[in-house]
């Protein structure tokens, strides 16, 4: 085997390994991180959605009797917060327990019950019936490439719309 062929093979191997280490692995790492973040986003979304549906139990029964839909504001907030805390494993101050996906304080930016000026259009969705709009920020940990991204926390910003559940 000539020296030139050997040299060519080594160069080829080095370039190939460099491609794997510097392009292929980071690319996969980013994809895996995105997949994990998507899962966390789904957990947050599901928890907030369950909390919103539970909050519908604070509908004012007297008002509902005359066809008006209004929520008892204090009870609405309490139910939402208690169910969100149970599902995201948060303490009373909305700070995540060690086994929670939230790595810090969860911020409920807004929680509103929309029952007027219907139908309401939000993006591609049209709401014909009253709904709850909830906006929360949940800090989550970065599992892969935390060093490369130079951060170990990410803030998931979720806006969830939940319509009044109808039971068939």
């Amino acid at each position, binding site marked *: 085997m000539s020296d030139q062929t050997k040299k060519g*093979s080594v160069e080829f191997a080095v370039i190939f390994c460099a491609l794997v280490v510097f392009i292929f692995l980071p690319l996969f790492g980013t994809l895996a991180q995105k997949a994990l973040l998507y899962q966390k986003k789904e957990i947050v979304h599901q928890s907030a959605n369950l909390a919103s549906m539970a909050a*519908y139990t604070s509908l004012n029964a007297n008002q509902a009797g005359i066809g008006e839909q209004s929520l008892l504001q204090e009870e609405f907030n309490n139910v939402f917060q208690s*169910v969100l805390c149970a*599902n995201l494993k948060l303490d009373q101050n909305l700070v995540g327990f060690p086994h929670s996906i939230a790595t810090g304080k969860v911020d409920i930016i807004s929680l509103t019950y929309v029952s007027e000026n219907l139908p309401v259009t939000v993006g591609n969705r049209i709401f014909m019936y009253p709904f709850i709009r909830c906006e929360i920020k949940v800090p989550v940990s970065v599992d892969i490439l935390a060093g490369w991204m130079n951060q170990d926390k990410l803030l998931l910003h979720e806006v969830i719309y939940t319509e009044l*559940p109808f039971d068939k």
Partner: protein
Amino acid sequence: MSARVVVTGVLLVFVLLIVVFMVEMLIPLSVYADFNESCRIALIRMEAIGGMTTEIEEDLSNRLRALNLTDIIITGTQHAKYGEVVRLQVTVAMKNHEMVSLFQRVLQYRYVTYDKTSISRRIIK
């Protein structure tokens, strides 16, 4: 020339190994998403009916078995009046033949849990 063929062959095997390893890492994520969705459906049904029934439990169990999950433990609130807490806890094991080296796979069980709470909307007439 033959040296380059050998090197390319070795590197291709190496890359293939990494690809298989990485793809296998993502499979549990996909199963977990399906597991979560099945449990969510069961919890919403519990919320509307006011607790866990045999029908819901069996349906959930079948859905989880269809996902190839084992060691299924389902615990849920049996009866809840309007405004009371409904809780569903499900623990399952994901059976996975993980690749530990080039020609060796080891059967591993990964346990995952679903634990969510809601409020019953069942009105007792």
